[in-house]
C-alpha cells in the first residue's frame, strides 16, 4: 500500500515536471529546432556551413522573407490572414523600378515602396472592416490578384533592371565590422524592424490591444478598444513591411520583376506558424517568427549545399510545417491532460 502511494506521487512529480517544461518548450522550442538544424548542417558540411560567407549568405537570403513574415505575424496575432503580401511586395518593388527608370530622385525612390505597401495594407484593412467581408481571407485574396495585376499594368509585364546604388544599399550591401567580418545591411534592417515591432507589441497600448483582439475580439470591443481602427492599423503595418521587403528584394536583385514574390505569402505564413504563433490568434512572439524564417532559410541552405533538387526542398518545407504544428498539438494535449 505504502509503495503504491510513493509510486503514485512519483508519476505525479514526473508529470508536473513535464507540465513545468511546457512553457519553456513553448517559448524556446523553435530555437531548439534552429540549433539542431545548425548542428546537422555543420556535421553534413563542416567545410562550408559555418564560414562567414555562407552564414551571411543565409541571412541575406532570408531577409526579405523575414520582414514579410513579421508583418504577416502581426496580422495572424489578430486571428487574421494576409494573402496579398507577396503581390504587395511585387507592386512596391515594381513601382520603385518604374519610377527609377523614369528618373525620379533617390529619396522618392526610397519612400515609394513604403507608401505603396501602406496604401495596399490600409485598403485591405478598410475593406475587411468597412465592407464587413466575412473573413480577411476574402479581402486579401482579392488584393493578391489586384496588386499582382497592377504590378503587371505599371510595368507592361516586363522586368526592369538597374537601380541607383543608394536604393540598393539596404538589400545588397555589406557593413564592414572588422577585417573579413561583414554583415549584410539587410540583416541590420531585419533586426531593427523586429526590435521595433517586438517592443511595439509588448509596450504600446495598441500592441497589447492587438493581442487582446486575437484572444477575444468581443472582450476587446466591450473594453472600449476601437477594434476596426486597430485592424486597419495592423493591415497597414503588414503592407508597409511588405513594401520594405520589396525594397530589400529590389536591392538584392538590382531590378523590379513582375513575378517577384509569387507565392511568397505562403513562405511568410510558414515562418509565422513554424515560429509558434497560433492561427487562432493571440499567441506568438517576434523572436519565434525570426526563428521560423531562419528554419526555412537553413533548410534551403543545407539542401542546396547537399545539391538536393529545389522540388524536394519544397516537399521538405511542407513536411516541416506539418511536423512542427503536430508537435504543438501533442504539447497542448499533454498540457491539458495534466492540468
Amino acid at each position, binding site marked *: 500500500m505504502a509503495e503504491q502511494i510513493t509510486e503514485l506521487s512519483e508519476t505525479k512529480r514526473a508529470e508536473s515536471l513535464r507540465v513545468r517544461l511546457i512553457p519553456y518548450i513553448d517559448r524556446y522550442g523553435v530555437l531548439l529546432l534552429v540549433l539542431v538544424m545548425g548542428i546537422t548542417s555543420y556535421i553534413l558540411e563542416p567545410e562550408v556551413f559555418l564560414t562567414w560567407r555562407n552564414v551571411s549568405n543565409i541571412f541575406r537570403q532570408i531577409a526579405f522573407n523575414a520582414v514579410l513574415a513579421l508583418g504577416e505575424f502581426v496580422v495572424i496575432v489578430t486571428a487574421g490572414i494576409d494573402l496579398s503580401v507577396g503581390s504587395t511586395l511585387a507592386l512596391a518593388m515594381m513601382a520603385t523600378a518604374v519610377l527609377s527608370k523614369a528618373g525620379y530622385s533617390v529619396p522618392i525612390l526610397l519612400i515609394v515602396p513604403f507608401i505603396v505597401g501602406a496604401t495596399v495594407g490600409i485598403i485591405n484593412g478598410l475593406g475587411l472592416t468597412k465592407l464587413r467581408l466575412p473573413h480577411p481571407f476574402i479581402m486579401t485574396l482579392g488584393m493578391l490578384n489586384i496588386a499582382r495585376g497592377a504590378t503587371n499594368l505599371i510595368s507592361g509585364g516586363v522586368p526592369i533592371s538597374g537601380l541607383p546604388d543608394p536604393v540598393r544599399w539596404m538589400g545588397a550591401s555589406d557593413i564592414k565590422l572588422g577585417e573579413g567580418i561583414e554583415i549584410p545591411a539587410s540583416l541590420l534592417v531585419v533586426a531593427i524592424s523586429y526590435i521595433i515591432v517586438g517592443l511595439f507589441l509588448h509596450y504600446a497600448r495598441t500592441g*497589447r490591444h492587438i493581442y487582446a483582439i486575437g484572444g477575444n475580439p468581443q472582450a476587446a*470591443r466591450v473594453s*472600449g478598444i476601437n477594434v476596426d481602427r486597430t485592424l486597419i492599423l495592423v493591415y497597414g503595418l503588414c503592407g508597409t513591411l511588405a513594401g520594405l521587403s520589396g525594397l530589400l528584394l529590389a536591392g538584392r536583385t538590382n531590378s523590379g520583376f513582375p513575378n517577384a514574390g509569387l507565392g511568397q505569402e505562403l513562405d511568410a505564413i510558414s515562418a509565422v506558424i513554424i515560429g509558434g504563433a497560433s492561427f487562432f490568434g493571440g499567441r506568438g512572439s517576434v523572436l519565434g517568427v525570426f526563428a521560423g524564417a531562419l528554419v526555412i532559410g537553413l533548410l534551403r541552405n543545407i539542401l542546396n549545399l547537399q545539391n538536393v533538387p529545389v522540388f524536394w526542398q519544397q516537399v521538405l518545407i511542407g513536411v516541416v510545417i506539418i511536423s512542427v504544428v503536430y508537435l504543438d498539438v501533442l504539447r497542448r494535449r499533454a498540457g491539458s491532460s495534466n492540468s
Partner: protein
Amino acid sequence: MNTTTPLIEARGINKHFGAVTALEDVNLSLMPGEVLGVVGDNGAGKSTLMKILAGLYPPSRGQLIVQGQPVHFSSPKDARDRGIEMVYQDLALAGNLRIDENIFLGREHTRRLLGVVPIVHHQANMKQAQEHLERLRIQVKSVGQRVEELSGGQRQAVAIARATAFDAKVIIMDEPTAALAIKEVRKVLDLIKDLRTHGIGVILISHRLDDIFYVCDRVMALFHGRNFAEAPLGRTDRNEVIGWIMGNRSQTASAQELDLN
C-alpha cells in the same frame, strides 16, 4: 450624491432587430446602494436591455438618464466613462492575456519613455491589479497568470474585478453565477452585498431565484420584451416571481404594481 436621484434610469426603451421587436416601452430605474434583480424567461429581453444600458446597443427609441442627466452612449466606452460597467455572461475576457491586462484592458496605466513615448506600465498595472483583488478578497496564485489558466470562479472574479476597478457607480451582472460551483456562488453574491455598502448600484440578471432572494432589494420581471411586474423583495415571494417569469400575474401582484405607480 443625492440619494433620491436614480443612478440610472431607462424610459420607454424600444429595441428592434430588423422585424423582431426585442423590447417595447421598457422602464427601469436603479437607486444608489440598491440591488435590482431582473428576471424573465429566455428571450424576454433581459440581456438586450442590459446591453443597451452598457452602451453596446443603441436603443431604437427611448431615453437613458444617468444621475439626472440624459445621455447617449455610442459605445461601451461612453457608458464606462459614466461609471456604468457590465459583467457579461460569457465574461468577455481575453484568455491569452494576464489577469492584470484583462482588468485594465482599454484603460492601461502608461508611463512616458524618455518623456515622450507612452508605453504600458506593466509593473504599475500588476501592482494595482494585485491590490484591487486583495480589496475584493479574491485569491489568485499571481496576477501574472493568464486568464485561460484560471478556474471558472476565478475568471468570474476577474471579470468582476475589471468592472469595479475604476470607481463604477452601476454594475450590471448578466448571470454571474450560472457557470459556478456552489461554494463560488456564495462568494460572488457576498461580493455584490459588499458593493452595495459602498453605494454602488447593482443590476443582477439571474435564473436562480436563490440568488435573487439572497441579495436583491427589489425584483422586476420582463415578459415578451415588456415590463411585466416588479416589487420590493419583502412584498413578494418565490412562487409569485416564478409566476411572473411564466407570464402569470396574481391579483396581489397587480395591486402592488398599482401601488408602486
